[in-house]
């Protein structure tokens, strides 16, 4: 009886303590997302004070919009390439850090530098390197006469390079916690069995770090898919829209063209893609568990 009453009051207290957070999140995150879906069924142009329900008209336009499919392709390309590079480099860096290199503390502090610099600032910093035509880092590497940000094909890779520079440390730190979590006894056993270092890496380290690896990949992919800052600051989607990602296209449609209806339809599509990515991960995780 006493216990039942405590549980009852605990529940009431929990409701009181959680109410502010839940209400605020509902108001600023949940409601706008649902409203976005609602707006995507409208023709809504602010400057003309025009708002009317048009059903699926925006989506009918979207499935025939080459610029949308271009943006979808650029976003996917950016995501796949940057996340792959970050995972490969990050894993290498994590393995190196785990091996107990010299100046370990200095290294750990230094690799947080790119992560701590605001994305806009790092994009601007790199823009300076990309536009230096006479001397400078890239010229030294033999890329002297290429206008990186103005040449289709190069500009997207410039954006990927900046993203990789900024995010690899974060990936490495996440993977490092996975590596540190592997019980030393397993390594001892492998050493006693006379396993070579390469064999230990492929048979023990990599399989055991895989769960962390996959979560990291998911987090990065979800993040990379909504990329806005890097691309907007470096190129604003140019040259000739070759770096325009979904977020950039949606932003321009809303804030430059003032078309909130179609812009909302574009952002809903971005949202659906992110949902698919997450759902794909959870389906994979379940399949992996039942195997």
């Amino acid at each position: 009886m006493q216990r039942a009453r405590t549980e009852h009051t605990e529940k009431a207290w929990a409701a009181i303590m959680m109410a502010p957070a839940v209400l605020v999140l509902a108001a600023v995150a949940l409601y706008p997302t649902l409203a976005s879906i609602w707006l995507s069924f409208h023709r809504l142009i602010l400057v003309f004070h025009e708002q009317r329900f048009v059903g699926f008209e925006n989506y009918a336009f979207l499935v025939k919009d080459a610029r949308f499919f271009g943006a979808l392709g650029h976003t996917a390309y950016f995501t796949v390439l940057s996340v792959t590079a970050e995972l490969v480099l990050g894993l290498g860096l994590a393995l190196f850090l785990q091996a107990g290199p010299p100046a370990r503390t200095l290294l750990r502090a230094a690799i947080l530098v790119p992560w701590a610099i605001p994305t806009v600032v790092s994009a601007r910093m790199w823009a300076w390197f990309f536009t230096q035509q006479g001397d400078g880092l890239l010229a030294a590497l033999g890329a002297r006469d290429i206008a990186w940000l103005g040449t289709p094909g190069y500009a997207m890779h410039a954006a990927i390079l900046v993203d990789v520079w900024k995010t690899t440390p974060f990936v490495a730190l996440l993977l490092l916690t996975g590596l540190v979590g592997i019980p030393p006894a397993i390594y001892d056993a492998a050493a006693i069995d006379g396993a070579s270092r390469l064999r230990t890496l492929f048979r023990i380290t990599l399989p055991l770090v895989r769960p962390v690896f996959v979560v990291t990949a998911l987090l990065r992919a979800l993040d990379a898919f909504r990329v806005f800052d890097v691309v907007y600051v470096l190129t604003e989607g140019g040259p000739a829209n070759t770096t325009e990602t979904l977020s950039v296209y949606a932003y321009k449609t809303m804030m430059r063209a003032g078309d909130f209806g179609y812009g909302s339809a574009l952002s809903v599509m971005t949202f659906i893609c992110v949902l698919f990515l997450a759902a794909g991960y959870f389906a994979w995780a379940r399949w992996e568990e039942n195997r």
Partner: protein
Amino acid sequence: MRRALQWCTVAMVLAFATGPLFSQVVTSLRPDRALGGGETPFAWSLANYRGALEGRALGRSLLNSIAVAGATTMLCLGIGSLAAFALAKLRFRGKGLWLGGALAISMFPAIATVSPLYLVIRALGLRDTLGALVLSYVTFALPLSLFLLTRFFREIPDAIYEAARVDGCTPLQAWWHVGLPLAAPGIASTAILVFIFAYNEFLYALTFTSSPEMRTVPVAISLFASNRVEPWGEIAAASVMAAVPLVLVAIVFQRRIVTALTQGAVKD
């Protein structure tokens, strides 16, 4: 031999991570004329810093950024720690659902909330105010705070919470007298992380502000251009001023940040 290879790798990683910022510092200290030509390699001046601060009101943007990030952090830690304490310590059902919901919200792409938030902010008359930014930053900062703080509160032994309850504390008093003091290091880590994320935000700040007086640092730097030629020296000076405080915070609180980052991502 092995040692030499290791040092080589260390040097490469250090150059890769800190080189761009370092070269930006150098660029910012060169007088503008030396940038193109390079006649006087050792000339340096603070003219670019003066230009960025006086000519372009970067100081105002820095203050805006700090105010917005600070207010976001306080707000999210306040209401976030209340809810997180309930999720970590109180007995009720459906906790996983609430946490999962917050996590799902944190994965919403910002662009998906921009258009309705813009309309709401316009209707409330908050367009081009710092309040609008705090309001919109909550969308990503509150789920992050909730998630991290719940984990840190869980590390407090249940027995301590039960003892406080037996001694007559209400859950709210337990949050204040037990939860906050015992989880103080975790709360500090969360605060640093939330502050950094809010300071870095760009899309909302670009959309919801229009006048130069309301710009945050990322927006100010992204719009830093004159009509004739890119003022690279001043951009570099502004970048250094925007980045160095955060870099110092990151280095000083390195351990806390790494703990919080990895808590948030890996433990599930």
